[in-house]
């Protein structure tokens, strides 16, 4: 169990180190090294959990089971590759004078702070601590959104802070109700909020209270996931904040919020018995999937475009978890992995493309492939992957969601496919003119290492073609935990 | 043995074609109170052309020189498929009426290509109009053929004739309409008066002539001969499919004699009918031909519908 403490300790140490020397050039190396160590620890933990089952830490504060262990590895991996990308990106930003060393220090410290909050959310067993960690993640990223101090970024940060604050407050009210329901049966004492305990006794918990608690939790954490009626902060935060932050925000924060909601769904399903929680999530998921794919058509800013694509994919995952059958849950877990890999790779190429063209407005970015083939092809292949074309993993997971829906709710499939079609049209309408065409005058290639992108896309391609055995049974165990049966 | 008979019949077919043209010319002159030329005039024309030195226009390619031979070969082959005097001949079995239409199309295609090869306005114009008329005429012709095939359950000409002979004189509305449709199409395909004037040399009005404007000498002879064979072929088609009586069903000398006699009689009558229609009608504007051919198509469709509704209703399998 040392690995779990290590995972939490490394970002803490990283925060302190970066708070002290975050400003100068060595900061990037420290950041990369911290994330590298965290990845090593998480892989060690994963191997440990894989062989001898779920681990409960002393004092029952931290709990690792098959569901959150692969998310930890994913978080560490995406954190590492994004930090590799953020090195040259941030130094370029400093050269063109958009950032002062002091703000870079804030950026690096908050980067590690955000990673710490993510690990805490994933590893903690106590629902209250999970809420605190989620709030911590919000606080860490809010200052990053307004890093560039432009009026738009301040506005985006303010909205992000207020909306997420209100959302998180609702989640707290849900947690209080959860604790209240637990206290009825488990008596006073610290362990009434522990997920493991709640999971065992979920049958005896009071259904009415849990239903109410789930509504608050769903609306609360739903704001963090970016489900449609509550999504308004996400496009602003993504388009105004620095690109590495958008990458990790998109890749990790949304996943963890969904992780929290699914944890609550398991409890509520245990006690309610009917599919109320599932239907609520399906409704939210489908609504955000369709509305977000419509939003894609009229975007002008490239990062806003991909933030709506994130909303759309998160909607699909929420819908899949809502369906609840073993196939749908397996598909949702698989989609979580492929989506965060692909989306962070895309944000890396988008960052470089914006730097190359000097603007984020899509109608002024032209001729990427001819100026710098790596960026151009990276963006194009990334968009093909996220739009759900086969050789890549996103298609496999979307196909599975379709098959699961066809099995349980056949009349919903045309809606889903309509959404996929609209999303593809929306994305490609903007990407294609940017990538193709002649080089506008005065556009010179920039220094950019696109190894993270190549790595991510190769992984997604590999997942698309054939899911490796160990990952396969990882997902199956997690599906067993969530939906109660193995996908046959 | 019947292969030799088939080749003989084909040779007879080729030889008789200019005779029919001569006979048509004679009847036309008689109607116009002119002294008609002799029946053998077409043969003399062909011999004259055969001996003249052909002129080859500058931009012409090998297609210009090859086209007459291909047209003539295709038309002669087509003539082989249609039973003239006797019915069950092997040449009739190697192809059916759709292949016949296909060979007409092959001949027409090479003629059109030759027309466009010289690179003058007239060749292009003739080719364009020829293809337009052909593409409107073909559906009408095939509908007429289908009407025949639906009732005779075959597309093989000799089988169809046997069927009509076996069932004797039966007044079939579908056959009447099909006959009408086929006649109208025949006039359009062979370029007779209402659609195209074979005798004219006014560049802007001719269709068939425009394509062979540049030909001379032996090439012109071949093409003229081929068009005469085609005219006779259509005549024989109309005559033998709808009025096959008298055609030889075995190879005894008297049956063959009777067959030859009857076909000469029928073709003569058809020629008179053709000349009468040419005397009555005048050449139509090119865009009026569209209504003419759609009327032919309508006739064939009526023939088909009448077959299905009236005649075939009681047939139970």
């Amino acid at each position, binding site marked *: 169990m040392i690995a779990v403490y290590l995972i939490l300790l490394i970002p803490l140490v990283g925060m302190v180190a970066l708070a002290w020397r975050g400003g100068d050039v060595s900061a990037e190396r420290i950041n990369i090294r911290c994330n590298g160590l965290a990845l090593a620890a998480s892989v060690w933990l994963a191997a440990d959990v894989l062989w001898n089952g779920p681990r409960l830490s002393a004092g029952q504060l931290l709990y690792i089971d098959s569901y959150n262990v692969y998310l930890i590895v994913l978080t560490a991996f995406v954190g590492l590759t994004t930090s590799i990308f953020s090195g040259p990106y941030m130094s370029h930003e400093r050269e063109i004078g958009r950032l002062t060393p002091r703000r870079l220090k804030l950026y690096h410290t908050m980067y590690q702070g955000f990673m710490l909050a993510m690990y805490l959310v994933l590893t903690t067993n*106590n629902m*209250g*601590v999970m*809420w*605190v960690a989620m*709030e*911590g993640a919000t*606080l860490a990223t*809010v*200052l990053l959104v*307004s890093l560039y*101090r*432009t*009026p*738009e970024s*301040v*506005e*985006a*940060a*303010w*909205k992000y*802070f*207020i909306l997420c*604050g*209100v959302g998180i*407050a*609702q989640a*707290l*009210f849900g947690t*209080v*109700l959860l*604790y*209240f329901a637990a*206290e*009825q049966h488990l008596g*006073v004492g*610290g362990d*009434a*909020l522990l997920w493991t305990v709640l999971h065992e006794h979920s049958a005896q918990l*009071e259904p*009415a*209270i849990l239903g*109410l608690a789930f509504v608050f939790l769903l609306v609360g954490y739903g704001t963090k996931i970016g489900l449609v009626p509550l999504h308004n902060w996400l*496009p*602003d935060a993504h*388009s*105004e904040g620095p690109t590495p932050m958008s990458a990790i925000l998109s890749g990790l924060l949304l996943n963890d919020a969904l992780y929290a909601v699914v944890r609550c769904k398991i409890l509520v399903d245990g006690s309610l018995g009917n599919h109320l929680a599932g239907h609520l999530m399906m409704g939210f998921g489908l609504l955000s999937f369709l509305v977000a794919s419509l*939003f894609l058509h*009229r*975007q*002008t800013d490239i990062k806003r475009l991909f933030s709506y694509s994130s909303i759309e994919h998160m909607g699909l995952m929420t819908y899949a978890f809502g369906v609840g059958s073993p196939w749908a849950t397996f598909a949702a877990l698989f989609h979580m992995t492929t989506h965060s890999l692909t989306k962070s790779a895309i944000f890396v190429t988008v960052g470089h493309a914006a730097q190359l063209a000097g603007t984020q407005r899509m109608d002024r970015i032209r001729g990427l492939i001819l100026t710098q083939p790596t960026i151009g092809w990276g963006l194009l292949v990334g968009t093909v992957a996220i739009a759900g074309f086969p050789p890549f993993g996103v298609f496999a997971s979307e196909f599975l969601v379709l098959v699961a829906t066809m099995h349980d709710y056949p009349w919903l499939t045309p809606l889903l496919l309509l959404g996929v079609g609209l999303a593809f049209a929306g994305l490609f309408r903007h990407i294609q003119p940017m990538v193709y065409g002649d080089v506008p005058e005065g556009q010179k290639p920039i220094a950019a290492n696109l190894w993270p992108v190549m790595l991510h896309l190769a992984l997604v391609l590999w997942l698309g073609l054939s899911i490796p055995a160990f990952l396969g049974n990882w997902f199956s165990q997690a599906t067993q935990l969530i939906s109660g049966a193995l996908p046959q | 043995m019947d292969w030799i008979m088939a080749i003989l019949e084909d040779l007879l077919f080729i030889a008789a074609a200019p005779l029919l043209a001569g006979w048509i010319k004679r009847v036309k002159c008689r109607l116009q109170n002119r002294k008609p030329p002799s029946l053998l005039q077409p043969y003399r024309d062909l011999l004259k052309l055969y001996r003249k030195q052909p002129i080859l226009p500058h931009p012409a390619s090998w297609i210009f020189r090859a086209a007459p031979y291909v047209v003539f070969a295709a038309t002669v082959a087509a003539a082989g498929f249609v039973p003239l005097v006797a019915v069950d001949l092997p040449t009739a079995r190697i192809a059916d009426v759709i292949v016949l239409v296909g060979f007409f199309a092959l001949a027409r295609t090479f003629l059109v290509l030759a027309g466009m090869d010289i690179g003058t306005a007239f060749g292009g114009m003739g080719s364009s109009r020829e293809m337009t008329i052909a593409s409107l005429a073909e559906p009408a012709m095939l509908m007429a053929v289908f009407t025949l095939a639906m009732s005779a359950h075959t597309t093989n000409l000799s089988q169809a004739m046997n069927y009509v002979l076996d069932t004797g004189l039966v007044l079939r509305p579908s056959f009447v309409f099909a006959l009408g449709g086929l006649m109208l199409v025949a006039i359009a395909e062979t370029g007779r008066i209402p659609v195209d004037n074979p005798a004219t040399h006014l560049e802007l009005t001719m269709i068939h002539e425009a394509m062979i404007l540049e030909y001379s000498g032996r090439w012109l002879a071949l093409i003229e001969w081929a068009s005469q064979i085609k005219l006779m072929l259509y005549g024989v088609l109309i005559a033998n499919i709808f009025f096959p009586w008298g055609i030889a069903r075995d190879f005894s000398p008297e049956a063959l004699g009777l067959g030859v006699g009857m076909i000469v009689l029928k073709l003569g009558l058809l020629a008179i009918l053709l000349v009468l229609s040419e005397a009555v009608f005048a050449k139509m504007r090119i865009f009026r031909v569209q209504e003419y051919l759609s009327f032919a198509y309508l006739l064939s469709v009526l023939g088909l519908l009448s077959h299905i509704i009236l005649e075939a209703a009681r047939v139970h399998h």
Partner: protein
Amino acid sequence: MSITDLDLYSQAILLLAGLIALTSFLMLGQSRLVRLVFIFAVQGALLAGATAMAAGVLDYPHLYISAGLSLLLKGIIIPLLLHRLIHRMGLHREMDTIDHPARLMMGGTALVVFSYYVSLPIVQHSTLVTLNAIAVSLAVVLLGMLLMISRRQAVAHVVGFMSIENGLFFAAVVSTYGMPMVVELGVAFDVLVAAVVFGVFFFQIRASIDSLNVDRLSKLSEAEQ
């Protein structure tokens, strides 16, 4: 379980709950920022009192610590912070006109009725005497959100946010024997950091649009283009 057969302490807690709901209503109708912060401070104090009273009734010692903590935090530090900010920003004289107060008040009452209707199933099952105050805490949360929706001043938004936190804290105290200590500390810490960050933001917003009127913050819009 009508109020008459409750002992004196429980009746006191229910009275405080009523007063907290009253402060929420007052905040809803208050157009001056200074007075708004003062009412928020009163609400914090009342909340601390209720927590102390609950600690007494349920004789649960660690509630006293959280009561002291909330008094210190929500009663004194945050209101002071906001008060100094308003004066430094020069907003103390500014009148934040509320567009149609009557409709707002009716909305508020409807919200209270609705929150009671929603928390009805919970109240029936529990044995805790102070439970029926949970409807009040839900009402305070919803009124806090209504306050944020109806006001244009950024400071008013912060006060609304803090009153939602108060409502949540009150719900924790009333419905359970108080959250576990580690969660209490975490929540308190988060609220403090939130207040600091708000301060930072006020200066940034002032710098960018030189006013704290929230309606001016709508450049990132996709509606009209």
